[in-house]
């Protein structure tokens, strides 16, 4: 139990004195992504191999938080050299131990190859994916075993809390956060300091602070990585916020689908209690605070703060109208402050390094860094932390390394399911709250889905509307009925049943849903529809007027046909056809039975590139099959 800031510093020095900076350290990402690609087996392989080679006491091994380069996991970083190995398998481990650890030799084949320079990169921080980021928050993940509080303390953990409690009044803490211009990272972008001030000034003795960790956007895992990888940073932020607002009880609302996050946050709370960062008289300051964890039950809408509060109270998670705002009437009608995971994680940094430091990153009204989860048709899938104001083009091409498979970029969808799709022409906008809004998208919580030329934008809108329709709570009619009608119309269009006037009807429904819905879900849900109509209206019109899908993606509008002039009767497509729709033989030109074809596209993909015999048709009739009598191929015999 630590009773004062001085004792905390003594403990920190004690931890550091036991750690030899020159001792080899093997860090293996044990985040959800790398675990899925076998990281835990890699960790055990290291432990076994070190023992086998008699190095057990000389080298430390740990499973760490997610460093973000999920595309190339499992990621292994060997310090002090910072050698970064990617896609490491257990069979690579003996060589790593004998060569890299023992002989200090780098294993070339496990290094990252910079595709532009065709050079191998040794250090993690030199890899373009990392080099172009500003990793204030997730940078520490690879240095920390999330289950070990000493790792967090060794990096200066809880010193911001000690500073706030011993050197700052609660007012000064709020003032510092206000001056930092930190805005909510969950989607709304509301100034955090102003929110804190409102809760602080609200009348009442009992107040609550809450971590909103109900991250539910498809394809987004920023909060997950911070929760799983560095849970103490969130707890420290929350305790500082509680002190600033005058709250003695906090909640972490984590979605049930994040078992590792739940486990690591639970362990972190217990450790913080044992060390005296939670409980009564924290660090001898006289301030008391406790945290409980609440598991969400899988409703997307519970990420909306009023729905989250009702869910916490044990009621159905349905939003209620604001005002009154949670700052004055929140959990059990008491003043409550809710911030997103990433917002809380920024707080210790701001307190430690000051608002001026924070203001160095970012643009006019959007300060600091933001974590994005970069997914979709992108070479480097992963988590990306950049200063606000970086262009979309830099994120996609410098960090993400562009689109795989020599395909063309079509759009990037930012802000989660209720975000907007941004086309090529706007790739040079600065990514911040205001600029994204200007082009019809949102910052949201940081989802970033890249789409290539094979993606149908009408189908994208349909996909997101389907998600939002299912996740609407159904309380207010513009959201419940409006989304359902929009989804029905979009489905019709993608199935070739679109009608003249559908685009206008979609726009009308989008306006009423956006204007009249009760909460942010309904008010932002029309974004995917409006932004795709705005930038890709021609695709809508092609579907409706010509029954044509320009991306050949909407199955009901696409037909496959084998060009008899080009088919070499190689049997490949016939064997791989998933619906037995192709007939042929070694000397018979292959023909697709259109009535049996399920449009799976396999024939198109497997037809050898020197033939290119499979053609796609959309919006025009498929040529009649070649008559049976002309199907026989007479092959030239090889000379005897």
């Amino acid at each position, binding site marked *: 139990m630590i009773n004062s800031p001085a004792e905390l510093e003594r403990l920190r020095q004690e931890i550091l004195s036991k750690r030899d900076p020159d001792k080899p350290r093997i860090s293996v990402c044990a985040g959800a992504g790398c675990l899925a690609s076998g990281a835990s087996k890699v960790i055990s392989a290291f432990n076994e191999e070190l023992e086998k080679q008699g190095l057990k006491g000389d080298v430390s091994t740990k499973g760490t938080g997610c460093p973000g380069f999920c595309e190339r996991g499992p990621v292994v970083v060997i310090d002090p050299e910072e050698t970064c190995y990617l896609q490491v398998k257990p069979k690579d481990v003996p060589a790593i131990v004998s060569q890299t650890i023992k002989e200090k030799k780098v294993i070339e084949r496990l290094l990252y190859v910079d595709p532009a320079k065709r050079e191998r990169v040794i250090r993690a921080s030199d890899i373009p994916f990392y080099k172009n980021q500003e990793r204030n928050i997730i940078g520490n993940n690879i240095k920390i075993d999330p289950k070990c509080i000493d790792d967090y303390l060794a990096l200066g953990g809880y010193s911001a809390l000690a500073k706030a409690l011993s050197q700052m009044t609660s007012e000064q803490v709020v003032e510092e956060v206000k001056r930092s211009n930190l805005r909510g990272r969950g989607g709304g972008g509301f100034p955090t300091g102003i929110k804190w001030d409102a809760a602080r000034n609200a009348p009442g003795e009992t107040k609550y602070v809450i971590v909103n960790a109900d991250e539910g956007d498809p394809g987004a895992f920023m909060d997950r990585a911070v929760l799983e990888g560095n849970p103490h940073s969130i707890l420290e932020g929350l305790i500082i916020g509680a002190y600033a607002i005058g709250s003695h009880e906090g909640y972490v609302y984590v979605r049930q689908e994040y078992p590792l996050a739940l486990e690591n946050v639970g362990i972190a709370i217990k450790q913080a209690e044992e060390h005296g960062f939670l409980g009564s008289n924290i660090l001898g300051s006289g301030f008391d605070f406790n945290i409980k964890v609440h598991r969400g039950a899988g*409703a997307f*809408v519970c990420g909306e703060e009023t729905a989250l509060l009702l869910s916490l109270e044990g009621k*159905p998670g349905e939003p*209620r*109208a604001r*005002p*009154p705002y949670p700052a004055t009437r929140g959990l059990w009608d008491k003043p409550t402050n809710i911030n997103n995971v990433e917002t809380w994680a920024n707080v210790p940094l701001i307190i430690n390094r000051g608002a001026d430091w924070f203001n160095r990153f970012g643009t006019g009204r959007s300060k600091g860094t933001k974590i994005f989860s970069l997914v979709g048709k992108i070479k480097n899938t992963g988590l990306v932390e950049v200063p606000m104001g970086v262009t979309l083009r830099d994120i996609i091409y410098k960090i993400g390394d562009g689109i795989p498979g020599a395909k063309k970029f079509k759009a990037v969808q930012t802000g989660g399911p209720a975000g907007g799709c941004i086309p090529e022409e706007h790739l040079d906008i600065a990514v911040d709250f205001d600029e994204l809004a200007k082009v019809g998208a949102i910052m949201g919580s940081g989802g970033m889905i890249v789409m290539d030329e094979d993606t149908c934008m009408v189908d994208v809108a349909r996909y997101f509307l389907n998600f939002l*329709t*299912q*996740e*609407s*709570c*159904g*309380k*207010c*009619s*513009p959201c*419940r*009925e*409006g*989304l*359902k*009608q929009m989804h*029905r119309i979009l489905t019709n269009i993608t199935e070739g049943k679109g009608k003249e006037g559908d685009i206008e009807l979609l726009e*009308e*429904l989008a*306006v*009423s849903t956006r*204007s*009249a*819905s*009760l909460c942010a879900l309904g008010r932002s849900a029309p974004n995917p529809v409006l932004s795709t109509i705005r930038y890709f209206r021609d695709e809508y019109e092609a579907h409706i007027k010509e029954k044509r899908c320009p991306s050949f993606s909407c199955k009901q509008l696409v037909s496959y046909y084998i060009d008899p002039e080009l088919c070499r009767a190689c049997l490949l497509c016939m064997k791989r056809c998933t619906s037995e729709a192709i007939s042929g033989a070694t000397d018979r030109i292959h023909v697709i039975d259109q009535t049996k074809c399920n449009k799976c596209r396999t024939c198109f993909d497997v037809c050898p590139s020197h033939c290119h015999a499979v053609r796609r048709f959309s919006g025009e009739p498929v040529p009649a099959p070649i008559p049976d009598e002309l199907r026989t191929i007479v092959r030239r015999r090889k000379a005897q």
Partner: protein
Amino acid sequence: MSEISLRIDGKDVAAREDMTLLEAARSAGISIPTVCHHEKLKPFGGCRLCTVEAEAAGRTNLVAACIYPVQKDLVVRTRSEQIDRIRKVLTEQLLAHAPESEVLQNLAREYRADKDRFPKEPSFCILCGLCVRYCAEIKQKNAVGFVDRGPSREISFVPEIAASECWDCKECFPLCPTSALQAAFVLMRSLSSFASASKPESKIQAETHSVPGSPVASDGRGIG
């Protein structure tokens, strides 16, 4: 409670501080349409037909009058091209579920809504929640509630509670804005599936039928 003044449709209106825009407007004789509102119940903000424009400090927001608190010097417009368009679409969406509802037909006339704009899904229920909230807030029985979410949301009686509470009450029936007796059908359905219901099925049907205007056909299905 002190009084404040605001402007609604160009008229100065004095209101108590704890009033909603809807209450203030109605007290001044200005009507705003509602489907889910009931004076005895807490504001719900579900149907959104009471959406109005509220202007403060140069910014205009669209807010639900039934739930939005009055503010000093707020400028409120209860009709505008924008509002009428929203009410028209909302009415059309609800008419798809309850085309025969008198309340909705009146709204359709006022806002020139086309009752055939969207494909019919005659569930009768427009999920206003009046029965649910009346049972919870006034009767404190919670015999009827919402189940599921989004487009799958519906009202359902809890058979164990309904079997003992609903026979002598039925106060929720006349609250229904669609077919006066949507609740009767749902009640019957839940009770007929309740094995230990205190009354035999024939009596359930007879009782639900005895209420005028019942949408329940003799075979137990709704009249489409």
